[in-house]
């Protein structure tokens, strides 16, 4: 119970501090502008403009959510250590584990609010100019939210031990690798060399499989979705997040604060 109180205190403060920072508002404005641009482009297309609005809109909200998580997340712990705001916090009877979990919950919450705001704007666009709002569109938004959360956690992990530049590099590398994880799997099955197969299988096991969260095609074309298509990625996302939080705690617990 005490741990829960401490975590919620860190989470609430992190949420407040993040949400009041105008950088988030600027990123939100950028994402909104991109969505409006998507709507303009859709009017010039030869195909079905309603589907293009949905397709571009879902991509823009996901990528903007990832960008916000990335750019704000990579300075989250690093910035606290550099600016020494962390010193009085960790001088309280607060285990570093609770600090890490609270940070993730608070920052993840702030990113989620911005992500929700962007998607509300998208839904409004779809309602006015698109084919309306389907359950698949909502499911797609939901699964992409897991992708944003995993990027948030990865940025937090890297910011707990490295500079923003390196953290950004590592997170982007994992994001790109995660987006192409299916290609790695296909390559493994075609690759006859045992030693490189072992390496690739290890890489495939470690990197996040963002393809699991991508149901944009089904959403745009309103294709049939099974419950497993939603449940399995949700469980996978939760497990992946848990592993990252544990890793961040282990790394951060050993760190000397400069």
């Amino acid at each position, binding site marked *: 119970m005490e741990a829960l109180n401490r975590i919620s205190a860190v989470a609430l403060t992190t949420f*407040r501090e993040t949400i009041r920072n105008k950088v988030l508002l600027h990123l939100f404005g950028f994402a909104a502008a991109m969505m409006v641009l998507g709507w303009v482009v859709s009017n010039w297309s030869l195909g079905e403009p309603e589907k293009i609005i949905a397709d571009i809109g879902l991509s823009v909200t996901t990528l903007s959510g990832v960008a916000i998580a990335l750019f704000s997340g990579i300075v989250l712990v690093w910035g606290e250590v550099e*600016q020494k*705001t962390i*010193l*009085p916090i960790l*001088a309280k*009877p607060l285990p570093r584990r609770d600090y890490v979990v609270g940070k993730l919950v608070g920052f993840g919450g702030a990113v989620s609010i911005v992500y929700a705001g962007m998607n509300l704007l998208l839904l409004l666009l779809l309602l006015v100019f698109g084919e309306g709002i389907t359950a698949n569109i909502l499911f797609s938004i939901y699964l992409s939210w897991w992708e944003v959360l995993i990027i948030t956690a990865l940025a937090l992990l890297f910011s707990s031990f490295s500079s923003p530049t390196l953290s950004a590099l590592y997170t982007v590398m994992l994001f790109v690798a995660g987006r192409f994880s299916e290609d790695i799997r296909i390559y493994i099955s075609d690759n006859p060399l045992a030693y490189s197969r072992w390496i690739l299988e290890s890489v495939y096991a470690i990197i996040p499989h963002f393809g699991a969260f991508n149901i944009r095609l089904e959403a745009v074309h309103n294709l049939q979705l099974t419950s497993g298509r939603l449940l399995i990625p949700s469980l996978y996302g939760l497990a992946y997040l848990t592993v990252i939080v544990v890793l961040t705690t282990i790394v951060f617990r050993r760190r000397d604060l400069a």
Partner: protein
Amino acid sequence: MPDSSAILVDSIGKTYYLGVRRRPVEALRKVSFEVRQGEVYAFLGLNGAGKTTTIKMLLDHARPSTGRCSLFGIDSRIPASRTRVGYMPDLPNFYRFLSTTEQLDYFGRLHGLGKAERLDRSRRLIQLVGLQGRENEPLKGFSRGMLQRVGLAQALIGDPALLILDEPLGGLDPMGRFEFHKIISDLKAEGRTIFFSSHILEDAERVADRVGIIHQGTLVASGRMAEIVMKESGFRIEFRRSGIDQPFDTIVAAKDWQVSYDESLVTITVPDESSLTLALAMAVQANLAVYTVTPVRSTLEQAFISELEKWKH
């Protein structure tokens, strides 16, 4: 371990490894000292001497490479050791978009205080540090002195038995320093233990019961303020000259006392009372008239410089 220890530092060392080649740099070397409950302990040293590094070990901001330290008998690596501790960092910095009230509420929650208690303590502390009227402003517009006031308030929110203050008077103007001295005296009167680092010796001389002097990562002196200062104290005796006092001069020169001459007076500085008695007896034998005897009390600054000089040799 003595029950009366608020802080016990047992032979801690800290080595950092810098650069790609992991060059070892010893920031602390076998530092040991004890701070008893209820006393004010000044931890003195030049910039880069190891004061902040020692404080980091106490608060588990960094782990010692060797040795261990404890707060109220609990290993400092355990978060519970900080339950009765308040800490104010050197150059305190806080979340820029939160107000003083929100910060204090946050720190109160980390101490496990209930809402009513947090509100009550915040209100009193805001008054104590003189931030009433500005408590709801975000801290991004606060000066260094004001941030230090917030720093003191957050250090006190958990009603700590031990206060650890890192260079608490560094950024304060004369009025701020005066107020701060008063607050420290009041906190001491309430029975709290205060451990503060400083390179401003005047502050230590005014408020500390005991002093530790650290230099280049080594604790070169530790003890009661009076003991540290007395090491550099003594007596100054002035004699009237009555001509050529050759035998007396020779004996005095052999004693390694400080001697100076002018036309009518011989001035001798002796280190302690036994030397004073001896010098007076010798003066009587040599038929010298004692003009004045003055106790010489050195300042902490002189003692500090002397300790560092001794350490160099």
